[in-house]
C-alpha cells in the first residue's frame, strides 16, 4: 500500500550530495513530493527532509540505496504519526481586494494565518501548518480571486522518538574510530 513517507537524510557537508540522493528516487521512479535541505544541529552535517508516496518496501529500498552513498551518514523514514512536522507558506494578496471584501480578513483569521505586512498595493500573509491547513487557506482565498503569489515550503520535521539516532550513530562511529 502506498503511503506518505518522510525520509530524514543526514550527510557530510559536501557539494553534490543532493544530486546523489535525488538520483536514487529518479532511478526507482518515485516522485519527490517535497524536499527541504538545511544545516542540522550537528556542525558540518546537512539534513535533507524528503517526502514521497510509495510502499514501505520501496521506502526501505530507497533508504538502503541512499545510505549506500559514501558521504551519507544516515537515512531514516517515518510516517506522520512518528514526527512533529510543519510547512510554511506565504501569500501575496492585492490590498484593494482586502479592503473591499471583509471575507478575506475573516478567512485569514479563521485559518490562524498571520498578516506580515500591509501596504497600499498588497498584503503579505504567512501561514504555517500541515499541507492540508495551507492548501485550505490558499483555496479559500484563491476562490475569491485575490491571490497574486503563493509560495509553499517543503516539509520540515523533528522526530518524536526519545533517542537521537544521528547522535547515536556518530558516537558509535567515534568509538569505532578509536577502538
Amino acid at each position, binding site marked *: 500500500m502506498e503511503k506518505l513517507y518522510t525520509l530524514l537524510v543526514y550527510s557530510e557537508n559536501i557539494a*553534490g550530495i543532493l544530486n546523489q540522493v535525488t538520483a536514487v528516487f529518479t532511478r526507482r521512479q518515485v516522485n519527490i513530493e517535497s524536499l527541504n535541505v538545511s544545516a542540522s544541529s550537528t556542525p558540518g552535517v546537512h539534513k535533507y527532509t524528503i517526502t514521497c508516496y510509495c510502499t514501505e*518496501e520501496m521506502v526501505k*529500498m530507497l533508504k*538502503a540505496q541512499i545510505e549506500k552513498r*559514501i*558521504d551519507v*551518514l544516515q537515512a531514516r523514514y517515518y510516517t506522520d504519526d512518528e514526527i512533529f512536522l510543519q510547512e510554511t507558506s506565504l501569500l501575496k494578496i492585492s490590498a484593494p481586494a482586502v479592503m473591499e471584501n471583509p471575507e478575506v480578513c475573516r478567512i485569514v483569521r479563521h485559518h490562524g494565518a498571520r498578516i506580515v505586512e500591509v501596504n497600499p498595493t498588497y498584503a503579505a500573509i504567512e501561514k504555517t501548518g500541515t499541507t492540508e491547513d495551507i492548501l485550505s487557506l490558499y483555496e479559500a482565498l484563491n476562490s475569491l480571486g485575490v491571490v497574486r503569489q503563493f509560495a509553499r515550503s517543503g516539509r520540515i520535521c523533528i522526530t518524536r522518538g526519545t533517542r537521537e539516532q544521528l547522535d547515536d550513530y*556518530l558516537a558509535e562511529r567515534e568509538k569505532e*574510530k578509536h577502538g
Partner: protein
Amino acid sequence: MKQNITGSEALMLALQAEGVKTIFGYPGGTIMPVYDALYDYTRGDNKVFNHILVRHEQGATHAAEGFARVSGEVGVAIVTSGPGATNTLTGVADAMIDSTPIVVIAGQVPVSALGTDAFQEVDLVGLAQPISKWSYQIRRAEDIAGAVSRAFYIARSGRPGPVVLDFTKNAQTERVDFKAEKVDFVRSYVPYPKLDAASVRAAADLINSAQRPLALVGQGVELGGAQDELMAFLEKADIPAGRTMLGLSALPSTHPLNVGMLGMHGNYAVNLKEQECDVLIAIGMRFSDRVTGSLKTYAKQAKVIHLDIDRSEINKNVKADVAVVADCKESLPALTALINKADHSAWRESFKPLDEKERIMVIEPAIHPSEGPLLMGEVVNAVAEATQGDAVLVTDVGQNQLFATRYFRYPKRRSLCTSGGLGTMGYGMPAAIGATFGAPDRTVCCFMGDGGFQMCIEELGTIMEQQAPVKMILMNNNYLGNVRQWQDMFWQRRKSFTRMMNPCYELIAKGYGISYDIVTDRIDLPAAIERMLVTKGPYLLECAILEDDDVLPMTPPGKSIDEMQLEIKNDK
C-alpha cells in the same frame, strides 16, 4: 614528509604509498603535469611504476579491471580531461556493477576555469557519480594525500567498486609539503557491517532444518577471500552449490559439491533445483535477473537466507527470510560453527539425472561434435584441456562469453575476468592485457567474438608494445551471434544488422607483429592450441565457427527458470 614538491609529484608519492606498481594510462593536456612527474617515476633507479600506455581510455579502465580481478589489488587508470575522461565511463560503470576495485584519475581544467566550458572541460564528477562508488574533485594540492588514500580505501574496502578522482590542473602544479596519509576510516561509510549473532543463529536453524539446501555462490566469496571458509561451510552440512557467472572461480569447479553455473545459460539441474530446494543460501551474490529469471515464480517454495556485505542488496530482488549482512569471510565461519554435520547425498543424487540429460543433449554435442564446422564449445573445451585448468579465462561478451564460461574449468581462485552485469562488448582484450600484468605467472586466455574483438581492437597496439602474452582466441562466426540467436528465437528470424562483414584478421595481426593462426578443421584444433600455448608472447588464434550455432540451455528472458530449454523447439 617531502617538502615543496608539485601536486603531481605528490600524486606519485600518494600512489606509491598505496602500493601501486602498475598504471594503465593515456596522456593529454590537463594531465601533462602528472605525466611529466611519471617520467621520473617510471625509469632509472627511481623506477616505482610500470606505466602501460593503452590506445584508448576505455581500454585503460578495462585493463585496470582485469588487473584488479586476478590480483585482488586496486587497478589504476590515469587519463586526461574531457574526451579522455568520458572515454572511461563505460569502464567505470562496468566496474560498478561488477564490484571491481579501480581508481580512475582524470585531469581537469584549473579551478579558475571550471564551469566556463573551457577546452576539454566536462563535469566528470557529475557524470561519474551515478555509476561510481565515489567521485571526488581535487581542487588543491594539499588535498592530494587525503583524497588519494581515501579513494583507495573506498575502492577496495567493503563491496569494492570504482572511484573517480577529478584532478584539477592547478592542484597538479601547485607546490605542497607532502606527507602520506593512511585513510582507514570514513565516518559516513561502514564497509564491514557488524555481524549480528541473532541472524546467524536464525540462518543456522534454517539450514539445520533443511532437507534440500542449495547454496548460490557469488563473486562476493572471491572478493572477501572466503574461498576456504566457503568450502568448510558447504562440506560440513553437505550442501550442493551453484555459482553465478562472476562467482565461477570462487569454488573450484572440481569440488564435489559444485553443481554448476546458475542463470540463463547455466546448468540445467541447478536451475531446476532452485525451484525445488527448501532452503536457498545466497552467498555474496545479488540475484541478478540473469540468475533468477521471472521473479514472480523464482524459488517461491524455499526459505531464503541471504549473506551479503551490502545491505542494499537485501530484499532488492528476492525477499530474504533471514539476512546476514556482513563480510562472508566473517559470516561463513560463524555460520559453519552453528550448523550440524549433515548428509544430503540423496538430494545431491537427484541432480544427476538432470545433469546427465544436459550432458547428452547439450554438452556432448557442443564439445565433441563429429561433423560440420567448428563449434565454440569444442574450442573452449580444447583450450581448457590444454591449459589443464591453470589459466585465467578472460572473455568478451556474447555467445563466445557464454560458451567460454560454461566450458572452461576453474580449479584455481581468481581465474575469471568477464563483464557480467554490464555485458560490455570490448571488455575482453583490454581486460586480458590487465590480467597479464595482474597475474604474470599465469597463462591468460581471452575468448572473443568477431564483434567484440573489433570494439577495442586498438588495444592490439598495447599488446604489441608490451608484448603482453595474451592468448587471443577469436571465435569468428561472422555474426553478432548472441543477438542473431535472439532474432532467430524471438524475432521471427529477422536478422536485422547482425550479419557482419569481417576484415582479414591475419593481415591485422601481421600489422601488429602478433603471431597468428587459423583453424577451420577440427582435426587441426589441438595442435593449433598447443602451438599457441608454447609460443612466447601474444598470439591470435582465429577459429572459423559455425555461423548459426545457439547457446544452450537457455531460459528465455522473463520466463521462469524451470522453463529452461535444452533445445530450441521452433527449429529454423
